[in-house]
């Protein structure tokens, strides 16, 4: 029975990991930016929702949507006014310059939120009546049901937009072959903005949902975002949205089941330990020995040959 309960817990946590990992992973895959300041948009959405529900009496759902929009706008602004202009200035140093800027933003954001919270006390999201639910011997709360449904609904929507629409086609074009996407007249800059918008929106929703369970803190989301980037890398930098999501779900379940043997305080150690082991084995190409050669590796070696 304990296994069942832990699995359900894992699915619940894994769903929000999946949501965040898809958001972070899309940004990483399409723009190549190591957007560690993703944490800010996440925490900001939670904070916005808490002000709206406690000070202005907004309903939870309005707060969820406004929180998401605030995250979206902030994410887009960061890309438009900070990351994008840095690229050409930094040249070969671009990856590190942008990561450094992201570190700075993260620090500013956390400091600022800390200041606000010191003055206003803790920020709670009200307006959602948390109620226990039970199926058989498995316990959870009503918010968990919403979290799972909303997360997967958003993941499926993003997957459909990428797979079926003109916009999605452009995004995939930029991700697949930047030079060629310029040749057909796509605008990478616009696509980058769109991707930052989508990614930050997903993070915002995750931020509001999580903050409804626990109060907003200045380092809200730091752990969650580090999980998200771990998942994005474990899934692979060319993974599809659905694949990233399932890796996130799997990791959530794995983490939860690990509690059969060890205390939950070890969870981060297990997750990052997994990452370390994966990275340690990666240079020796263990995984690909058991997989048929992929498209990507074939074209990569073709370009290597041409150079």
């Amino acid at each position, binding site marked *: 029975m304990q296994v069942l309960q832990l699995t359900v817990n894992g699915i619940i946590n894994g769903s929000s990991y999946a949501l965040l990992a898809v958001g972070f992973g899309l940004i990483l895959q399409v723009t190549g930016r190591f957007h560690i300041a993703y944490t800010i948009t996440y925490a900001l959405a939670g904070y916005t929702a808490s002000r709206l529900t406690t000070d202005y009496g907004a309903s939870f759902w309005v707060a969820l949507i406004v929180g998401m929009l605030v995250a979206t706008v902030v994410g887009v602004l960061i890309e438009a006014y900070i990351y994008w202009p840095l690229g050409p200035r930094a040249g070969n140093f671009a990856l590190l310059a942008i990561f450094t800027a992201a570190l700075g933003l993260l620090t500013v954001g956390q400091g600022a939120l800390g200041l606000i919270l010191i003055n206003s006390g803790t920020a709670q999201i009200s307006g959602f009546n948390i109620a226990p639910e039970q199926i058989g011997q498995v316990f959870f709360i009503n918010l968990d049901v919403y979290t799972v449904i909303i997360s997967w609904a958003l993941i499926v929507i993003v997957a459909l937009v990428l797979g079926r629409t003109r916009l999605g086609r452009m995004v995939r074009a930029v991700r697949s072959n930047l030079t*060629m996407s*310029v040749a057909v007249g796509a605008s990478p800059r616009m696509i980058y903005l769109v991707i930052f918008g989508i990614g930050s929106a997903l993070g915002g929703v995750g931020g509001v949902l999580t903050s409804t369970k626990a109060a907003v803190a200045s380092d809200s989301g730091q752990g969650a975002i580090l999980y998200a980037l771990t998942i994005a890398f474990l899934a692979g930098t060319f993974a599809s949205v659905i694949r990233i999501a399932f890796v996130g779900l799997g990791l959530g379940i794995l983490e939860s089941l690990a509690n059969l043997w060890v205390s939950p305080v070890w969870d981060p150690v297990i997750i990052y330990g997994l990452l370390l082991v994966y990275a340690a084995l990666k240079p020796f190409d263990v995984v690909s020995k058991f997989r048929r050669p992929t498209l*990507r590796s074939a074209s990569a070696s073709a370009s290597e040959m041409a150079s």
Partner: protein
Amino acid sequence: MESTDASEAAGTATAYEGPSGDALLAVHGVTTGYGSKSVVFDVSLHVQPGEVVGIIGHNGAGKTTTLRVIFGILQAQKGKIVYLDQDITNRSPRKNVQGGIALIPSEQFVFADMSVRDNLLLGALNERSSSVINERMAEVHELLPILKERSSQLAGTFSGGQQRLLSLGTALMSGPRLLLLDEPSLGIAPALVTSLFATIKRFALERGLSVLVLEQNIGQLLRIVDRVYVMRSGSFILEETAEQMKKRDQYWDLF
């Protein structure tokens, strides 16, 4: 500002005295490169409507760089580029595609992890009307039937030659007036080169499409071009008609 003919600057006689008015594309004394470093020096060329023009030269002579500056991927450090009587120097690639210029790079010219159909649709990215898109798609399918038969196949699973055909189809989907082709024969079988070139030539003749093509494969190139520029170490050293060029007994001197 009309610059001096590059071939004169290089100290050789100009063999060809063709028209230079009414050009679809005219490049005047352009210098360009990467960062502060120049790799193409004071290059001038023109392409007439419906004309197929070739640029030959050794690898690293600056052919691709010339193409990139015309298409707006690189900024011109000096000089002027005129297309359809408009100054398009340093205009964005996106605007150039909208203006009817299409570029096919020399390598990685397809979206490998996307379907053939998606590749073609991306070619028509700047066309909103679905009826126009469908029309062009039908045209391309007629011209290159394999793209219809394998519509849902991933482009990366195509052979090198098939990918070339797909890239041509993708370029045609934008409804171009000027096609910029970077070494289309690279890495494909000779027989396929012949048919690929024939397709390009047919399109140029039937639609009045102008083509600027970079090649090392002179034999194939001379079958379809009207005129050839020769490039070496970043400058044009010679300009000849295809007829004049065919009369040469050897080509080693040009490289």
